[in-house]
């Protein structure tokens, strides 16, 4: 039997009926049409499905969908405001911090959670923040550089 779940997704109200046992990743992708979080492992090992729930990073594929009833979810799909990219998106773009791009949405969400809480992180803090996100092609250094650069740009703005 499907269960109704309502929540806020990237600032807009979302209401979906979910299958019993459905995870948040499937519900966001197929139920809400937000394809930005990705499936990589289904077990919390890769972080490709990382989304923010009430501002904190969570693994969407391990989140029972009905748990998010009434809560606020942010994904990479809502990171830009209109045509204006988020500083993190700009920094990833300019710093070649994405190659295949599959881990990127999860990386961006982990990075956003960090910068929202700590606008001026150290390199070690950045490493810690993305430690749950695996990347297989870009290599982590350009990603770390990009996050630090975004922090700098945001500080300057």
């Amino acid at each position, binding site marked *: 039997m499907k*269960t109704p779940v309502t929540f806020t997704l990237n600032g807009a109200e979302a209401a979906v009926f979910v299958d019993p046992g459905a995870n948040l990743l499937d519900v966001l992708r197929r139920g809400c049409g937000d394809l930005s979080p990705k499936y990589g492992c289904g077990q919390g090992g890769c*972080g490709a499905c990382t989304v923010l*729930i009430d501002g*904190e990073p969570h693994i969407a594929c*391990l989140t029972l969908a009905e748990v998010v009833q009434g809560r606020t979810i942010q994904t990479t799909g809502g990171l830009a405001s209109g045509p204006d990219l988020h500083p993190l998106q700009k920094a990833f773009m300019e710093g070649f911090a994405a190659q295949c791009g599959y881990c990127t949405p999860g990386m961006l969400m982990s990075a956003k959670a*960090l910068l929202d809480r700590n606008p001026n992180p150290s390199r070690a803090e950045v490493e810690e923040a993305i430690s*749950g996100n695996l990347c297989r092609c870009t290599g982590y250094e350009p990603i770390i550089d990009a996050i630090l650069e975004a922090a700098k740009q945001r500080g300057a703005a």
Partner: protein
Amino acid sequence: MLDVRTFPTAAEAAGAMNDDARFLGGGTLVMNRVNYGDQRFRQIIRTTDPSLREIRTEGDRVAIGAGATMADLMRSPETAFLASAARAVGGPAIRNMATVGGNLMAPHPYGDLAVALLALDGVARMVGGGEMSLEDFLSQRRGIVQAVLVRRPAGDAFRFRKVSRVKPKGVSVMSMAAHLNRSAGRLSDVRVAYGAMGPTPVRVRAVEAALEGASLDAAGIAPALAVATDGVTPPDDPLASAWYRREVAPVHLRRLLLGEDAR
């Protein structure tokens, strides 16, 4: 097809448990199995009971709700002494989800926090009353835990160490915790526990006995290092062989006991 049942109180959820059900805490263990179509259960039971997330002091002990997450432990001043062990679990997103109760149920090589709780004389307070030592609970892993009670360690008496090949987030080659009580300059009533050195986190009685009355220096702990793996049965797994775990355990035990830093 699955069936999800949500209860307002932990007691009702515990009452609904059956052999075809799994209790969902943070989801990091149960949803993993759901995603892989585990045929051993058809029901998910959960509760919205806020009491499960409470962290509060009870005398010389701290009661940690089984639903408290690793992030909760790192944030709460009551559990500052557990912050390093909580941080050893997963990445930030996992720590926002993984719970204390779930950590007690985590299969090898997971369950790093439980190692710390074991070394602090952890006691499992079950939903609906009743308490049992964490050691006993880990040997059967049945029932719904309301909270885990641990001794609050004095000063730097509590030590925790996780050995992994990947940092900062990696799966344990082994984890170790020690509660080094001292009396008149000598170690007394010491607790030492290992993780990823057997099917569940275990206390290492041989090491504890060898440390009784010893001084906390290289010479004093030498007998304990000599029996570092007595009574433990480390597994072979893709992270490390049993042989390797036995070989390096004394080294890591020394670093743990003497507070030597080696990241």
